């Protein structure tokens, strides 16, 4: 009883900040868009039917999911050494290193874009160096396309993976690796036989979180995609703010939300599987 009372403020915030707008969004998705573009209050599934019947929607879903899945895998792969380093560091350095690992979280999307332009752009660091060394003639195109979005997304998802892995690896008893060493395992074998299998649940959790964030990512595809990377979030933005077709934007947002909820449920099912305890 007291537990419910204590949770009440959070539940209220959740209700006001999440459920109410969600209900409003759902209501809008049932409205009708007239030929003139004007919105007519109605209760119709036209927007859903149109979206679900459009090949482009399914292309968007496929592109979005594969982008999120691959960028998340890369982010987790890059985050793992960082997390391991933080874990191995002395307590004095641990805080500093952990902060460095999650520092990208502190930078705004626009500042990040400017940074990436300076690195990946035609006149950016990489192209200038490679051209200076005579490795390439024409600049490599690493921004304003899928490559740029992948790079940007990996960077923006990595801190979340680092956070999840730090929490996960923090529970991993360092004595296990010492035990492996005393039994004759060198560092590499210790890593693959002991550390990695025990980190697997944390890796999966980090990947799934990143996939969810990656699927709903908007800023990176919008800022680094050069207008040729179409994913669900940018499409919702375009429908809402450029085409001003709210029912379609709302319907697509609802579909995206349903997909993400399904993914989270899947994750819940994973964690309930037998043998995943501790």
């Amino acid at each position: 009883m007291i537990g419910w009372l204590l949770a009440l403020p959070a539940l209220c915030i959740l209700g006001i900040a999440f459920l109410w707008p969600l209900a409003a969004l759902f209501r809008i998705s049932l409205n009708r868009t007239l030929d003139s573009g004007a919105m007519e209050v109605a209760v119709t599934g036209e927007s859903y039917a149109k979206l679900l019947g459009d090949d482009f929607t399914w292309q968007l879903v496929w592109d979005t999911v594969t982008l999120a899945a691959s960028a998340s895998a890369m982010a987790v792969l890059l985050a793992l050494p960082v997390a391991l380093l933080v874990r191995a560091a002395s307590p004095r350095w641990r805080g500093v290193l952990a902060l460095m690992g999650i520092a990208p979280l502190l930078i705004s999307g626009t500042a990040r874009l400017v940074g990436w332009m300076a690195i990946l752009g035609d006149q950016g660091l990489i192209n200038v160096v490679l051209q200076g060394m005579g490795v390439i003639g024409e600049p490599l195109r690493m921004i304003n396309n899928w490559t740029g979005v992948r790079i940007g997304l990996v960077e923006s998802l990595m801190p979340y993976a680092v956070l999840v892995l730090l929490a996960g690896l923090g529970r991993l008893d360092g004595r296990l690796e010492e035990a492996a060493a005393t039994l004759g395992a060198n560092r590499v074998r210790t890593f693959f036989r002991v550390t990695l299998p025990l980190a697997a649940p944390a890796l999966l959790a980090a990947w799934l979180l990143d996939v969810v964030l990656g699927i709903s990512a908007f800023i990176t595809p919008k800022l680094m995609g050069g207008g040729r990377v179409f994913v669900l979030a940018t499409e919702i933005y375009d429908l809402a703010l450029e085409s001003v077709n709210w029912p379609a934007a709302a319907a697509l947002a609802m579909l995206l939300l349903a997909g993400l909820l399904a993914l989270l449920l899947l994750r819940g099912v994973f964690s309930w599987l037998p043998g995943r305890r501790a």
Partner: protein
Amino acid sequence: MLGVAGLTAAAMPAMAQGNGQITVMAYGDSIFRDNYVSAVIEPFQKASGTQVQYFANPGSAQMLGTLRSQKGDPQVDVVIMDTTTAALACAEGLVEKVTAQQLPLLNDIAQQARDAGGECGPGVTFDNLVMIYNTDNVKTAPTAFADMAAPQWRGRVGLGGPPNIQGLALTAILAHANGGRWNDISKALPALKAIAANTQTFDPKPDAVTVVVSGQVDFTTNWNARAQLASIQSKGRVGVVLPKEGTAFQINTINVVAGSKNAAQARAFMAYALGTEAQKAFTERVFYGPTNTKAQIAPEALNRTAMAPQYRDSIVNIDWAEMQKLRDSWNQRWRREVVTAAP
């Protein structure tokens, strides 16, 4: 002078009602906002005694959102937004209708600006699509959109693609220039694909001026007012061209919000904003074309707008209401045929 006198008379009743306060909703970017406040809003406050709150919004769609959510109880009295979005607000009854009988000033407003508003408020600013380029890298001044398709500019072009209205306007201009009506996209596609082959970004970020100044690309399409300011502020590093294929207007209309609690003052503001004094002041500051044909604009400012006599024939008349119906299919064709033509 007559216009100003008429306006002052029109503003009188508002003052008599005890000066009051209105909220004007318009663009939040500093170029529009700062200049509109000094050129139009502050003089109006002085003349009428009405206090004006400037409610800044990132774009027209957000303004429409505000109007829709406040339909029962409007907190905004006047709205300045893009004609395509304003047409939706007009159709949904979110803004007042207005006739020349109610507002004789409408007779001084350019026909295209009146058409842009339909039955609701008319255009208050004209802007038009231009091309900007980096004068350090592009030594020979370009004259046409088609110049962006020259082989040496591979990967050096930025376009605002649909659903952004820049892309819609560009398509209409190129359709018209290549022997079709503005709405015949098939005539525009070959030229668009040729430019797209050189295009690095169809959504220049952070904005179309910065990417040219920074050298990330050498050309972008842009709206004239911003381009002119950028050209002046960059001391000529940014060159502006009104291409020979022509140009098309982006029109912001002004409307009194339906159900405004300060309708009298709101109408007075609308009249002032459309009057010659405000039109002249705003054009001379930021090179948005005047919609009031009686406004006497200094030639050096006028020459930086598409309203200058030499550009009169380059203007492609787009029916934005019809465009609204074409938008979806143009959007799809761009994605399938134009964007895919880029490397």
